[in-house]
């Protein structure tokens, strides 16, 4: 039966093509000069460059962390190129008509039409290609509602007061090794500002694409939901199939001011490397949000790609009655490794957090949940509920759970439930006996296992995520 499941898990990575786009790419290497050049390319004000250079100094004094349950060759940071942009983007196309059709085709192939008429109604897209944003759709419509949705490189120029106030306010430069690196060399990502009392009229989304060889992508995203506002945001990520590893080191900061709500969903499908672990993206990401009074941040992630994932979308529940949620599906197969989870830091009174994590391991992969729930002394009446389920497929993979609970307040309540199960021969046989082929059977069993998380995704994307999982599990056998 294991053979059959393995076969069912063989898949082709459908996003693995390379776009034929002429790019300006920096020579590999990292020093102050490279950082100055990035800043110049982005036409940045002096204060931003200073912040970058400061971060670079901080980073140089830090050590690469090794506590995660992952194993990979040390990254040679001098062998990476830190900036790559399609040549056609140099003249800053004013409208979609001026954008290189090859870029538009790339996104179309990925199922993300950038021509507004063809798009999913109600979803605005920022398309980030290597180190630049290619296009951001529906900007006019959004600005009518006062919503700012633009590449962060533009926000630095056009909305410096907001950027200065909030960039680095949730994830400080010194937070960790990759965050510090990101502060020094970040290139593009999205910036969102939702004004007071506004419900963002559309879903916002960003699609990250790595195309150029030997480049790293250093995404930086900042979302600010002002008092009483509401926004739902989704990011997707893909990359070509290449034999060498590539680094994606992102920092995402969310600020939910009083009574605001941010729903942040990720469908991560970076190239996972081949069966033997050759190639694939290193996805080393810092994501954190801060909740002020009565605010709510909800992270939902579907992680199916990347060779190595190191990612803990977290919530700092600063304000009283604020709520943090984390819903995660992480699928690893082949030789993939994932160490992912969340941190819920309860500072305010009556703060609540929910963690639902579903890890699926197949092949020879390793899948770890790592989570921290901290109840600080001021967190009177705080509550956390954690449910952590692992599903094993086959007998060569690993599922690990590393929950950390720190309670410094006697009135706080922390609950943790964990299960480990496997796709059993009995389940497979039942499905087949009813006429389902093994591929459909595995995909159905896995989808069932993930149901609680999928129902948290925005409707438009729940279907997409289900399909992605199906593609992930689809075999080449008929």
């Amino acid at each position, binding site marked *: 039966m294991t053979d059959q499941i393995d076969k069912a898990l063989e898949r082709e990575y459908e996003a693995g093509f390379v776009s034929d786009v002429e790019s300006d790419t920096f020579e590999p290497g990292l020093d102050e000069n490279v950082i100055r050049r990035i800043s110049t390319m982005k036409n940045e004000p002096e204060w931003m460059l200073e912040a970058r250079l400061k971060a670079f100094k901080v980073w140089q004094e830090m050590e690469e962390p090794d506590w995660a349950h992952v194993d990979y060759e040390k990254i040679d940071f001098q062998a990476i190129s830190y900036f790559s942009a399609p040549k056609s983007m140099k003249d800053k196309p004013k409208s979609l008509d001026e954008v290189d059709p090859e870029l538009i085709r790339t996104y179309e192939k990925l199922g993300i039409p950038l021509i507004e008429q063809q798009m999913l109604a109600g979803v605005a897209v920022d398309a980030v290609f290597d180190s630049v944003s290619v296009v951001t759709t529906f900007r006019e419509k959004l600005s009518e509602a006062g919503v700012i949705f633009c590449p962060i490189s533009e926000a630095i120029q056009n909305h410096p007061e907001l950027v200065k106030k909030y960039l680095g306010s949730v994830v400080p430069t010194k937070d960790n090794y990759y965050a510090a690196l990101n502060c020094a060399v970040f290139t593009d990502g999205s910036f969102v500002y939702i004004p007071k009392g506004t419900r963002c009229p559309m879903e916002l989304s960003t699609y990250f694409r790595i195309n150029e060889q030997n480049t790293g992508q250093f995404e930086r995203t900042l979302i600010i939901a002002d008092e009483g506002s509401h926004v739902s945001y989704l990011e997707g990520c893909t990359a070509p199939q290449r034999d060498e590893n590539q680094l994606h080191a992102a920092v995402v900061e969310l600020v939910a001011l009083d009574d605001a709500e941010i729903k942040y969903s990720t469908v991560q499908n970076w190239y996972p490397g081949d069966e033997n672990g050759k190639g694939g993206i290193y996805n080393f990401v810092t994501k954190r949000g801060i909740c002020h009074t009565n605010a709510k941040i909800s992270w939902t992630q579907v992680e199916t790609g990347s060779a190595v994932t190191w990612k803990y979308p977290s919530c700092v529940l600063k304000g009283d009655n604020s709520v943090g949620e984390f819903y995660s599906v992480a699928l690893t197969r082949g030789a993939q490794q994932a160490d992912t989870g969340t941190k819920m830091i309860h500072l305010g009174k009556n703060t609540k957090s929910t963690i639902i994590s579903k890890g699926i391991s197949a092949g020879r992969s390793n899948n770890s949940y790592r989570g921290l729930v901290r109840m600080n002394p001021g967190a009177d009446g705080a509550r956390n509920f954690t449910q952590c389920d692992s599903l094993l497929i086959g007998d060569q993979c690993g599922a690990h759970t590393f929950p950390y609970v720190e309670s410094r307040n006697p009135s706080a309540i922390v609950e943790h439930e964990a299960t480990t199960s496997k796709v059993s021969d009995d389940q497979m046989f039942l499905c087949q*006996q*009813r*006429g*389902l082929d*093994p591929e*459909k059977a595995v995909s*159905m*069993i896995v989808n069932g296992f*993930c*149901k609680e998380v999928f129902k948290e995704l925005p409707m438009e994307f729940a279907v997409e995520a289900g399909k992605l999982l199906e593609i992930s599990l689809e075999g080449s056998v008929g």
Partner: protein
Amino acid sequence: MSNTNTKDTSSLLTIKDLHASVEEKNILKGLNLEVKPGEVHAIMGPNGAGKSTMGYVLSGREGYSVEQGSAVLDGVDILDLEAEERARAGLFLAFQYPVEIPGVSNLEFLKASVDAQREARGEEAVSSADFLKLAKAACKQVNLPLAFLKRGVNEGFSGGEKKRNEIMQMLLLQPKVCILDETDSGLDIDALQVVAEGVNSQRSNDRSFVVVTHYQRLLDYIKPDFVHVLADGKIVKSGDASLALELEAQGYAWLQPSDEEGQNA
């Protein structure tokens, strides 16, 4: 009393000299059985005789190897087919211990199964709305609340509910040959009646049943045309419904073959 004396091509299931083993242990040692359309055959026998193995071998469960013999279902030799292909050919096995599939709703599972079988026959998929009607009717027929369609497959079901759920699947899949593997085990009288009514409602001239059971009780509700005793991997005695009563009274010991010619069919 023999049903193996004809070479009738109208036979729906023909098992000939079937030898099969699990983990290198011979379990079936020359099983012969012929089931014609519309017939109900009961298979009884002592523990370890190979009754469940028969169901698994016929339905293609992994880990069971066939050493010898053949099994033909409605003209199709099924022993070389994958499990799902046998199901699509019209073979249904009602499990003794139905397994749970958490998070996959019964309805979704049933629809996927029916669609897969229809697709294999080159038929169009049933629309969701039409399927829901069919599923609701089947659910009512086995006396399960409609909420069970939305619940995960067998998730948190009681033993009786699981068995009724098996019958619901059978009703929707409309197989040619149904093997019921001790479907009566662990059932109270009410559930037993529901199961039996489900089976009886499906009895027709083009569908046959092989009912594996330990107890004569089930056969009060599902009247068999033939009763066979399976012992040590083969049929050692066949008769009509009265044989079941005889077994109930006397047990199996008198039938155990001491050697090869112990057969009395």
